C-alpha cells in the first residue's frame, strides 16, 4: 500500500517537473537531481535481506530451544549463559520479527511495558520473564510453562515470517529503527534490567543495521560514494567502542559496569551513525 503511494507521488512529480519549463530545468542542471525515479530495481537486495532474516530466525529457534531445555532441566547457570547469545538472533532481525504486533511482545515484552499498559505481572511472558527468574530469583522453578510457551511463540514467529513482504521501505526504516532501539532502551540499560546483558542486544542491533547497509552498499556506492565512506567510518567507530567492552569469552561485560562517560560516548557514536544512515533512503531513487 505504502509502495503504491510512493510510486504515484513519483509519477506525479515526473509529470509536474516536465511541466516546469526550460528555464527551470537549466537552473536545476547544476544541482544534483532532486527527484527520484522508481526505476531502481532492488529485488536482489530485498531477496538478500529476506534470506538473512529467515536464517537469523532459524538460528533463533534453535538457540531458544537450547535455552528452553536448560530452563526445563533446572540448569540455572546454563540457562544464564545461553540467554543473551540466543536473543541476539532476534535483535538482529527485529525489523522483520516485529512486524507481528502480538508475537513481539509475547517473546520480548518487558515488565515495564506491560505495566505501562495497565497489565500485571501475571500476563508477562517470554524471555524477560525468565530473565527475572534467572537473575533475580536465581531459579528456573515456576518458569517451565513460560519456557514452553516461549518456544512455541518463537516457532510461530519463524513460520509467520515466511509471509512478510520485505520492501525497501522495511529495510531502510528497519535499519534506522534498530539504531533507535539502541538509543532509547539499550543505552539506558532498560532492556535487560535484571541480567544487564544490554551490550549483547546493542551489538546485535548494530549488526542488524550494518547488514542492511552491506546489502545496499553496491547501489549506494553508485549514488553517493561519500555516504558509503561516512557510514563505514561511523559503523567502525561504534564497533570499536563496543569492542572495548568484550569480556574475552566471546561476550560482553555487564552493562552496569559502564560509567556515564562510556554510555555517553556510545550514545554519541550511535547518533552520529544514525544521521547518515537515514540518508540510505536515496537508494530507491
Amino acid at each position, binding site marked *: 500500500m505504502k509502495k503504491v503511494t510512493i510510486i504515484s507521488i513519483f509519477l506525479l512529480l515526473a509529470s509536474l*517537473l516536465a511541466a*516546469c519549463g526550460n528555464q527551470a530545468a537549466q537552473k536545476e542542471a547544476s544541482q544534483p537531481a*532532486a527527484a527520484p525515479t522508481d526505476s531502481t530495481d532492488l529485488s536482489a537486495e530485498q531477496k538478500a535481506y529476506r534470506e538473512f532474516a529467515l536464517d537469523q530466525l532459524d538460528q533463533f529457534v534453535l538457540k531458544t530451544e537450547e535455552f528452553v531445555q536448560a530452563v526445563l532441566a533446572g540448569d540455572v547457570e546454563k540457562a544464564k549463559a545461553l540467554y543473551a547469545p540466543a536473543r541476539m538472533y532476534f535483535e538482529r532481525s527485529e525489523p522483520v520479527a516485529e512486524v507481528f504486533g502480538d508475537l513481539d511482545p509475547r517473546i520480548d515484552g518487558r515488565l515495564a511495558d506491560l505495566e505501562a499498559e495497565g497489565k500485571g505481572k501475571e500476563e508477562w511472558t517470554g524471555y524477560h520473564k525468565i530473565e527475572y527468574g534467572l537473575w533475580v530469583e536465581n531459579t528456573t522453578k515456576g518458569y517451565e510453562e513460560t519456557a514452553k510457551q516461549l518456544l512455541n511463540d518463537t516457532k510461530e514467529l519463524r513460520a509467520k515470517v515466511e509471509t512478510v513482504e520485505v520492501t525497501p521501505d522495511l529495510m*531502510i526504516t528497519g535499519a534506522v529503527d534498530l539504531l533507535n532501539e539502541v538509543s532509547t532502551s539499550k543505552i539506558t540499560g532498560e532492556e535487560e534490567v535484571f541480567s544487564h546483558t544490554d551490550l549483547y542486544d546493542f551489538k546485535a542491533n548494530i549488526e542488524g543495521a550494518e547488514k542492511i547497509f552491506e546489502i545496499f552498499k553496491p547501489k549506494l556506492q553508485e549514488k553517493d560514494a561519500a555516504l558509503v565512506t561516512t557510514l563505514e567510518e561511523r559503523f567502525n567507530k561504534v564497533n570499536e567502542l563496543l569492542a572495548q567492552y568484550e569480556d574475552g569469552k566471546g561476550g560482553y561485560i555487564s552493562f552496569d559496569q559502564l560509567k556515564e562517560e562510556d554510555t555517553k560516548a556510545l550514545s554519541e557514536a550511535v547518533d552520529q551513525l544514525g544521521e547518515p544512515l537515514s540518508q540510505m*533512503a*536515496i537508494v530507491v531513487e
Partner: protein
Amino acid sequence: MQTEKHSSESRMEISRRDLLKTIGIGAVGIALGAVGSLAAPGVRSYLGGIASANDNISFYGAHQPGITTKNPKHVYFVSLNCEVKSRSELKELFQSWTEDSVRLMNGEVMPNSPNTLLPPYDTGEAVGLNAARLTLTFGVGPSLFEKPELGLSSRKPPELKDLPHFPRDQLDPKYVGGDICIQACADDPQVAFHAVRNLIRNARGKVTMRWSQAGFNSYPVRDGKEETPRNLFAFKDGTGNPNVDSPEEMNRFVWVQPGESADWLAGGTYMVVRRIQMFLETWDRTALSEQEATIGRHRDSGAPLGKTGEFDDMELDRKDENGNPIVPVDSHVYLAKQANERILRRSFSYVGGINPETGAFDAGLLFISFQKHPQQFINIQNSLGRLDRLNEYITHRGSALFACFPGVEKGSYLGAALLG
C-alpha cells in the same frame, strides 16, 4: 497544474505555511526544481516572502551578528567539542555552517526531497514562523588550538586561554570550556533553538555537544524605546554598556583592531560566558535597602544610589553627611567600576527546574560579555573578588572563553582568515 502558472516571482510570495498546508509535501520538491537549490548562498527562496523586511538580520557584514545586535529576547547557547580530524574538514564545517546560517537567519526552510523515505531536510519546528531577528554567532575556544591534528597551535593568540580561577569560583565541569561555541539569539525561543538544532544535526559526527544553556530577557518599552532589561534579582543589567551605535566605542572596547591580536581575529572579539547561579530564595528575604546597597543602585529606577536617573553619573566618591561613601565600597557596581574597564554585556536569565539537593529554584544568569581583550573582563572580575557583597547571593558555576571570528563578506565563510 497550479505550479505551471506561477512565475518565479509569484512563487516567492508563497509562505512556507501555506505551501505546506495547501499543496502538500510532494509539491515542495517541484518548487525546489523550479527555482533551483535553496542551499546555495545568495539564492532567495520562495519562502523568503514570509519574513517581514525588518525581522531578519543579515548574516553578512564586517562583524558577526549577535554582538551589537540590540535587545535579543532569547538565547540558545551551546558549547561544542570538535571531532574533525583535519584543518580542511574544519574549514568544510565552517563553510557549510556559513550557508546554513545565511539560510536560517533569512528564515528560509530547506524544502524536502520528494523521496519521502528520507527524513525531512529541516527539522521543521520553525515552519510558519518568521526570522524573529535570529542571529548566529560563532566562536572558537582555546582547546581547539591544542588539537595537534588541526595544526592551529601557531595561530593561537596568547590571550586565548582558559580564564583564571577567580575567588569563590565553584566551577562545575559540566559547564566549562568548549572547542567551538554557537550563540543563537532571537525574539522567539523556538526559532533560536531550531537554528542550533539544525546546525548541530548538519554537523553530526563533526561535533559533539559539551554544554548548553537557554536564556531569556525582556525589555520594557516606554515611549517607543526599549529599556534596559532586569535580571532575576530585579536589577537592570547592562546600564553601563558602551554604545553599540558608536563605531568609535565599539572599536575601543569590543572589536579587535588590526595588530592587537592574531591577524585572523581583526574585526572579531572575545566572548566570555559565565553560568552564574543566583540564590533567589536568599535574595527574596533580603531587605530592599540591603539589596540596593549590595548592587550600588536603586532597584526600580536603576539609578546610582542617591540619584534618580538610570544613566546618571555614578560619582563613586560621593559621601553622606557622616562622611561615609553613598555607594558602598563593597557594592557590586563600586567594585566593578574600580577596574576602570568597559565590556559589552549581553546577559540572559535562565531557569532550569529545581535544585535536587536544596529544593530551591535552579536559576541564574547566563552572563555573556564581548570585549577586545579577555583582560578587560578578568580585571573586573578580579576587582569584584572576595569583597563583592553580591557574592553572598551568587556562585559562578560555568565558564568559557571564545574568540569570535570577524564578520563574513558574501562569498567568504566563517573563520576564513584562520582556516583558509
